[in-house]
C-alpha cells in the first residue's frame, strides 16, 4: 500500500478565516473549523451568524432565531427609522420567512427584507403615503426575490428542490398618527395596546389554506388550523408566484400600543391576539429588545419547531433620541 502524507494546509482555506485561525469546533471541542464552516474533526456545522440575530434601533427592536429543529435560519428581518417631510418620525420593520420547500430560502428572506426596508426608508422622507410606500416596498421585494432565481445557485447548495427562491413578508410602518401594515403569505402583525384592558387584534389575514377555508365559510377556524394543510401558503414573493397580491392596511389607533411583527415560528405558539398579548411583556414599548427576546424564548420553550423572528414597533412613533426616555 502506498501512503500519502497529508496535504499542507490549503492557503485559500487559511485566507478565509484570517481573524480566527484557531477557531475550535463548538460540537466536539477537538477540531478546528475549516473554511467552509465545518469542523475538521467531527464534521459538524458551526453556528452561523444568522442562527441568532438581534437588533435594536431606538424604540424598536427585532430578534431572529434558528429555533430547535431547523438546521439554519431562513427567516430575516430589517428595521429602520426615517423622518417624514413634516419632521415627524417614522419607524419601519420588515420580517420575512423563507419558503423551505424552495431553493435558497435564506437568501430570499434576506433580499426581501432588506429591499423592502430600503425602499420604505427612501420613500417615506419623500412624502410618499406610508400605505402606498408599503405597497411599493412589497413589489420591490418581490422583484428582488425574482432576481435571485436568475442567479446560479451558490456552489455548496444543491438542494433537492430546484424551484425558484421564495419567502413571505410582513411589515409595519408607524408614524405619530398612523399604523400601516403590509404582507404576503402567512407571517403576521398583531396589535397589543399598552393598556391591557383594551382588546388586542390581529392586523393581517394569512395567505394560507386555512385562512381561505375559514374565509370561504367552509371550515371553522379550529377545524381549519387542525388540518395538516393549514400552513400551506397561497401567496408568497418569488419567481414561482402566479400573481403577486400585496395586502396593505392602514390604522389610526386611538391609544398607544405595540405592533408585533412576526413569522409563524412565533405565532404557532401564540396564535390568537389574546395569547400574543398574554406573552408580550407589559413593558414592551419601553424595553422592546427584552420583550422580543421574551417572545422568541416563548417559542423555543414551546418546542422551537420553526425559525422564530419577531420585530416590536411601539405606537406612536417618537422623535429620534426620545426613544429611551
Amino acid at each position: 500500500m502506498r501512503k500519502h502524507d497529508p496535504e499542507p494546509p490549503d492557503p485559500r482555506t487559511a485566507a478565509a478565516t484570517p481573524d480566527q485561525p484557531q477557531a475550535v469546533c463548538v460540537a466536539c471541542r477537538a477540531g478546528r473549523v475549516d473554511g467552509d464552516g465545518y469542523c475538521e474533526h467531527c464534521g459538524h456545522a458551526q453556528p452561523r451568524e444568522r442562527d441568532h440575530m438581534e437588533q435594536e434601533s431606538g424604540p424598536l427592536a427585532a430578534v431572529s432565531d434558528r429555533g430547535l429543529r431547523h438546521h439554519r435560519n431562513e427567516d430575516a428581518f430589517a428595521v429602520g427609522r426615517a423622518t417624514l417631510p413634516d419632521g415627524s418620525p417614522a419607524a419601519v420593520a420588515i420580517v420575512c420567512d423563507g419558503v423551505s420547500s424552495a431553493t435558497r430560502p435564506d437568501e430570499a428572506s434576506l433580499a426581501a427584507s432588506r429591499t423592502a426596508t430600503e425602499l420604505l426608508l427612501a420613500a417615506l422622507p419623500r412624502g410618499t403615503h406610508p400605505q402606498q410606500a408599503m405597497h411599493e416596498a412589497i413589489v420591490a421585494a418581490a422583484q428582488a426575490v425574482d432576481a435571485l432565481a436568475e442567479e446560479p445557485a451558490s456552489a455548496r447548495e444543491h438542494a433537492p428542490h430546484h424551484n425558484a427562491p421564495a419567502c413571505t413578508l410582513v411589515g409595519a410602518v408607524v408614524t405619530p398618527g398612523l399604523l400601516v401594515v403590509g404582507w404576503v403569505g402567512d407571517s403576521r402583525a398583531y396589535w397589543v395596546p399598552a393598556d391591557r384592558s383594551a382588546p388586542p387584534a390581529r392586523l393581517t389575514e394569512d395567505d394560507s389554506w386555512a385562512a381561505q377555508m375559514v374565509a370561504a365559510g367552509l371550515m371553522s377556524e379550529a377545524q381549519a388550523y387542525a388540518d395538516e394543510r393549514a400552513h400551506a401558503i397561497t401567496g408568497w414573493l418569488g419567481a414561482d408566484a402566479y400573481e403577486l397580491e400585496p395586502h396593505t392596511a392602514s390604522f389610526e389607533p386611538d391609544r398607544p400600543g405595540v405592533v408585533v411583527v412576526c413569522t409563524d415560528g412565533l405565532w404557532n405558539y401564540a396564535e390568537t391576539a389574546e395569547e400574543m398579548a398574554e406573552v408580550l411583556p407589559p413593558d414592551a414599548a419601553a424595553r422592546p429588545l427584552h420583550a422580543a427576546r421574551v417572545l422568541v424564548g416563548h417559542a423555543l420553550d414551546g418546542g422551537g419547531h420553526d425559525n422564530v423572528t419577531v420585530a416590536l414597533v411601539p405606537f406612536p412613533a417618537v422623535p429620534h433620541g426620545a426613544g429611551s426616555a
Partner: protein
Amino acid sequence: MANFSKSSVPRFSVEVYQNEYLPEGGREINAIVTVTATGGGTAGGAVTAPDQYAAPGQGPSAAVVIMVDCSGSMDYPPTKMRGARDATAAAVDTLRDGVHFAVVAGTHQAGEIYPGGGRLAVADATTRAQAKAALRRLGAGGGTAIGTWLRLADRLLSSADVAIRHGILLTDGRNEHESPEDLRATLQACAGRFTCDARGVGTDWDVKEVTGIASALLGTADIVADPAGLAADFTRMMETAMGKGVADVALRVWTPVGTTLTFLKQVAPTVEDLTDRRIEAGPRAGDYPTGSWGDESRDYHLCVRVPVAHVGQEMLAARVSLVVPRTGGAVQNLGAQGLVRAVWTDDMAASTAINPQVAHYTGQAELARVIQQGLDLRKAGDIDGATAKLGRAVQLAGASGNADTAKLLAKVVDVVDAATGTVRLKAKVAEADEMTLETRSTKTVRVKK
C-alpha cells in the same frame, strides 16, 4: 506550481448531487459526484503534471505500448492476424509526433517487435514507417500468457520519463499458459504504473479476463467480434490516449470522525466499484485512483454512514477533492472540491425524497449486476433464474433510457413486455452477442435531462 497556472492545463470541476436531508435517526447519505475535466488534451496543448513539461501547442509527454496477441489461434481464421496488423498500423499512424512507443508480440512469452532492445521509439515519420514495416514480423504461433506481455510493457513504459503511460492490449484467446494467480499478481504490480485498454477479438477469449485487465489498469474493455473492425477501434483508442492531459489522478475522500465510507463506485461512463482501492492518505482521508484524464466527465456514487445526530443538526459527511500523488509522498491538489452534507430534519417530505441522480445510478448499477448474474445463471443452466434476472435488466434498461444495453439484451432474450420485464430466453444466441452483452454490461447512461 508555476506551470499549473497555464491556461492549457485541464481544469477540474466537482459537482455534488444529493439529498442531504435525513430523518431523526437517519445514518446513510448517498451522493453522486460529477467530476469534469476541461481544457485538457483533446483541446490541444495540455500540460499536466507540474513536473512534466511540454512545449506549447503540444500534448503532454506520453508513452504507449501496443500488445498484440500472436498465439497460434490468431491464424484461425487468418483474418484475425491480418486485422491485428492493420489495426496496429492504424494505431501507429495515430501517434502524435514525439510520443514514445513500442509494439510487443504476445504469446506464452512477450517479444519486442519494434523498436527492440528494451527501448521505446519516439514517433515521427521515420519511426512510424519503420514500425509498420516491422509489423510483418507479427506472426501467429505459440501460447498465451498475458502477464508476460504486461510485464514487458511495464518495463518499456518505465524507461521513459513521461506524464502519460498507456497500453493497448489485444487478445483472441484465454490466458492458458500462466495461472490466474500469476496474472492477478502482474495486474497488482502494474496498477498505478500505467493504464491499459483491453480488447478481445473473435469469441474464444474470456470476458472476465479482459474486463479484469481493463478494470485493474483503469482502461476500457470491449469486444471486437469481427477482425475487420479492429483498425477503427485501435484508431479510436489511440486518439483517446493522445487526448489524455493528466495522469494518476486520485479522488481524495475525507470523512469526519465516526463517519465511514460504505462504498465508492464510478457509475459513469461505466460501473466500477472503487471501494477496495482505497490508499490511506492522512487522518480520515483516502485516495481512490482514477487513472488519466482527457476532456471528459465521470460520475461517482458515494455512500457514507454518519453518526446519529439530532433534528436541526448539520454536518459535513464527506469532502471530495482531486489530487495527483507526487514522488516523495507529496500531492498536488487539483483545486476542485465537493461537499457532501448531512442535515437532520423532521420534514418527512424532505428526508424521504430520493435525489434523481442517486436513483438513476442506483438503477444503472443494478442493471450491470443483474446482466452479469443473468448470464452466469444461463451458463449454469438455471433457465428460470436467468429469465428473472435478464427480465429485470430489460425493465431497468428501458426505464432508464439505456438504449444500447436494451438492444444488446434483445439479442439474448425475446422481450414480451419491457415495462414489466417479461422476457423469454432465446433458444439460440450467437456467442458474439452474449459476449458483447457481458463485456458492455457495465456501460451506463447519464440522467435524462
